[in-house]
């Protein structure tokens, strides 16, 4: 029987994942799996009210429970100047409340005990006397005069207004609207949702009272940045802090911020001299850690009667909750929302955003998204659908008419983005062809005659990912570069150390493959190390689809550095001039004499044993890569739904996804990323909702109320690709982790609207649930 040659892992090869063996055997190592000798457990008492003044906190009864070691309150933290901490958006956030609570679920006190059950019991015995205040949960109401003031402790803060931010050219946009034959408008709300990785957030903080060394195991998507922030917030010397981010059970943006629980556990370990573990339960995760979206948007598109787009005007109100804690580059108050012109050549655009405090949990994380790109993509793609309805044009034709054409790249958008490459028409055509678009439209027309509701939804999204460039983009002042350190051992095996951190994306495989491509070392021989700040070079972490665009570029560049040195060694070994040495798939050979060659493994050995005179020993290097630009993945998604007039239920019949993320390193992993993103987009479109009642009670605090898609509801996905490399990325890759979550919600909603638009229904806000669809149908007399 012939045996297959095992794949080495060159770019484009779908090798199986190196990380899987431990996961399928239950040998992953997540934060909650870590147990240290003498470890204590922490439980947090949280506010039951959305807004209340704290009159007193009595902890005697809790303190008296056998096994309780300490009760930590805001007052105690205040003595150490730790009651408040900075947020990633330059605001402050209470670690433990001292004056009042500002959202339901806010951290009020912590119990540290020898046993987690005891800690939890004791937390319930803490008596907090609250003076309940009126809560404000709507950002429009929050900005009205006389609204309850959320941040009364902030000097100079006399209203709930946080910021005003603009992008684009206002005057030019006004002129475009003045010229327009028609203005299409859409007012829509992208509701609050939550990333909800299956693993919640947690920490084991271990500060040695003898050495002062702080070893912190935490669910961190950005361990290096977190180390620096810990140094700044807690005043710990940075060289003594080691952040270890072990296996992470999904992140999706939820594990980017620093949460109060991390700070208290660390402070408690410092004060008590023992390791302290805190792992949130699911409700804590949903009510207090980084939510996403919560954007009220009004978009207007200036068009000609034949569908040419002339200008785009957007006004938004962002609900930021009680503390402004968006995780985003500091100069960009609305993140990268101004990518809102999307895939279209719109000559003028202007975006205005305001942010408001409300009595809701803080956050605004980029949930599987590059800083508010999801909201932008949703708005423009819904707006194009609305325009197609108003203009009575086919939505595919309208898109096609306005796409940025391939020859226009590099393309500078009206809001200042420099798009690197794209073939939007090609992706659209492929989606239409694979779906059998014309046939579907015919079927729809026939069904409509019979009164049946069927819809076809499109979204031709463009994302902007891979931040830096560091000149403009930072997190808490830290420039958004990333890094790779590569050491090739004498036997030709290697270790690659990265500043990014996988949460399931398969870095141990994908990044090894970049080394395989550049140096020829088989991926199986390249160990990838991440998530240990003592043993990896500084980097900004994994979010905003930046690992491959930035960390991947760093990996390629450091491999090339080593290749240059390897060439010199090859020349020495082959007794040839360096200029005459060629490299191909792991072999260095003399030009025109391919039989005279040395493998990378032979050269690695020579790097430690037989060097040219004067050359430094070893084969290793480090690269810090600051990207010259973002990358711009794109694609077209097409969804077919059937709607039941009796129940309002929308059933997704088909979901066709064409993605272009440039060069695909491991196509199997890329496809897996797309599947996951599509399922999350489906969940956001149809079910995932965090909402609040008038008193600020969170209605989405567990998986009974906050619905996530299971295998039963989730449709099957049909995936296709086009490949348009990024011209500035060393291997032409663009990043893929988030495209599907960014692009798909609009396709799902557009499909629903396409099914009912002829009845006069032009918008239903997400989540597009059966009851909302039925109510909309009922209102126009079309429900059964």
């Amino acid at each position: 029987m012939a045996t297959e040659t095992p794949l080495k892992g060159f770019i484009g090869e779908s090798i199986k994942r190196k990380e899987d063996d431990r996961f399928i055997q239950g040998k992953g190592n997540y934060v909650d799996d870590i147990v240290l000798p003498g470890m204590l457990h922490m439980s947090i008492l949280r506010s039951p009210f959305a807004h209340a003044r704290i009159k007193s906190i009595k902890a005697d009864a809790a303190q008296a429970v056998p096994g309780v070691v300490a009760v930590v309150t805001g007052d105690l933290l205040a003595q150490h100047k730790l009651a408040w901490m900075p947020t990633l958006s330059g605001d402050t956030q209470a670690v433990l409340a001292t004056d009042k609570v500002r959202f339901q679920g806010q951290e009020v006190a912590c119990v540290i005990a020898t046993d987690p059950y005891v800690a939890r019991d004791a937390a319930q015995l803490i008596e907090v006397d609250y003076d309940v205040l009126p809560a404000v949960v709507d950002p429009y109401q929050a900005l009205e005069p006389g609204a309850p003031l959320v941040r009364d402790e902030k000097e100079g803060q006399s209203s709930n207004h946080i910021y005003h931010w603009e992008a684009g050219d206002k005057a030019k946009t006004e002129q475009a609207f003045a010229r327009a034959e028609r203005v299409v408008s859409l007012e829509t709300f992208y509701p609050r949702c939550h990333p909800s990785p299956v693993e919640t957030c947690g920490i084991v903080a271990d500060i040695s009272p003898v050495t002062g060394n702080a070893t912190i195991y935490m669910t961190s998507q950005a361990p290096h940045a977190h180390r620096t922030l810990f140094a700044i917030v807690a005043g710990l010397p940075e060289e003594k802090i080691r952040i270890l981010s072990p296996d992470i059970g999904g992140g999706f943006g939820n594990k980017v911020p620093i949460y109060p629980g991390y700070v208290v556990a660390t402070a408690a370990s410092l004060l008590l001299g023992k390791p302290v573990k805190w792992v949130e339960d699911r409700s804590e995760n949903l009510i207090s850690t980084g939510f996403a979206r919560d954007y009220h948007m009004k978009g207007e598109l200036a068009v000609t009667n034949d569908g040419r787009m002339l200008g785009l005007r957007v006004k938004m109100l962002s609900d930021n909750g009680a503390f402004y804690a968006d995780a985003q580059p500091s100069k960009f108050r609305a993140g990268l929302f101004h990518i809102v012109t999307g895939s279209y050549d719109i000559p003028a655009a202007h975006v205005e955003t305001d942010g408001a405090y409300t009595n809701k949990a803080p956050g605004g994380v980029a949930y599987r998204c590059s800083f508010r790109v999801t909201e932008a993509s949703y708005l423009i793609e819904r707006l194009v659908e609305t325009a197609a309805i108003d203009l009575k044009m086919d939505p595919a034709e309208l898109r096609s008419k306005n796409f940025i054409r391939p020859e226009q790249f590099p393309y500078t958008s009206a809001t200042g983005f420099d798009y690197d490459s794209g073939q939007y028409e090609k992706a659209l055509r492929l989606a239409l062809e694979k779906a059998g678009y014309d046939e579907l439209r015919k079927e729809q027309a026939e069904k409509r005659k019979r009164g049946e509701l069927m819809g076809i939804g499109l979204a031709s999204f463009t994302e902007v990912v891979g931040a830096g460039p560091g000149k403009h983009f930072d997190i808490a002042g830290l420039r958004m570069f990333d890094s790779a350190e590569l050491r090739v051992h004498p036997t030709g095996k290697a270790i690659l150390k990265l500043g990014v951190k996988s949460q399931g994306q398969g870095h141990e495989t994908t990044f090894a493959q970049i080394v395989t491509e550049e140096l020829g070392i088989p991926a199986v021989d390249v160990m990838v190390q991440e998530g240990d700040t003592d043993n990896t070079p500084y980097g900004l972490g994994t979010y905003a689809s930046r690992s491959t665009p930035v960390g991947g570029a760093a990996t390629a560049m450091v491999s090339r550095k080593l290749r240059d040195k390897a060439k010199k060694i090859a020349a020495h070994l082959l007794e040839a001039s360096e200029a005459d040495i060629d490299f191909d798939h792991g072999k260095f050979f003399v030009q025109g004499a391919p039989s005279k060659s040395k493998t990378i493994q032979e050269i690695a050995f020579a790097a430690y044993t037989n060097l040219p005179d004067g050359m430094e020993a070893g084969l290793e290097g480090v690269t810090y890569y600051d990207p010259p630009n973002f990358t711009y993945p794109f694609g077209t998604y097409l969804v077919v739904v059937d709607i039941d007039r009796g129940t309002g239920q929308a059933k997704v019949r088909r979901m066709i996804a064409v993605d272009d993320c440039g060069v695909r390193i491991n196509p199997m992993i890329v496809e897996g990323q797309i599947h996951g993103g599509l399922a999350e987009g489906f969940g956001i479109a149809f079910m995932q909702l965090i909402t609040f009642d008038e008193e600020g009670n969170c209605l989405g605090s567990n998986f009974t109320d906050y619905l996530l898609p299971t295998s039963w509801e989730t449709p099957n996905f049909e995936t296709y690709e086009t490949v348009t490399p990024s011209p500035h990325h060393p291997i032409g890759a663009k990043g893929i982790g988030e495209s599907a979550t960014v692009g798909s919600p609009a396709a799902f909603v557009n499909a629903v609207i396409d099914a009912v638009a002829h009845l006069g229904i032009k918008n239903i806000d997400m989540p597009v649930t059966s009851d909302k669809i039925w109510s909309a149908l009922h209102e126009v007399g079309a429900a059964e």
Partner: protein
Amino acid sequence: MGRSISLTVNGEMVTADVEPRLLLVHFIRERLRLTGTHIGCDTSHCGACIVLLDGVPVKSCAVLAVQADGRQLTSVEALAAGGKLHPIQAAFKQEHGLQCGFCTPGMMMSSFALLADNPDPDEEEIRWALSGNICRCTGYVNIVKAVRAASAQMKLSAAVPIPVGAGS
């Protein structure tokens, strides 16, 4: 205050004193240090904590340790036998049916129970059987593929050993 319980865990007899309120998942993770079984939601929705009790999948965050007294418990750690992956494990890797790995043990235990009951499930039956397990990474497409591949493989090699303590 403690109650003595005895049960078979992955084929080995275990006796322990437990508080009556101790959850089975905590007993498995903290007392037995079998950390392949995970906790994802506390409300029996996510299925990361699924183990088999007498061969039947249970959400161990919704079972008390004392309820396992006298029973046979199988966790993910018992799937591989004799240094060889179980076909379900091999198929999850082969079909890229996992990403972060956190839901994976629970998914595989549910899949195991399904295939024991129905050796040749179609896509709809697989999706229904796994609807008590939440995965946030894969979109389920490759998990379904993995279960189908495991089913095919198990039919081919009828001699696949059943994990110890998996019941009949």
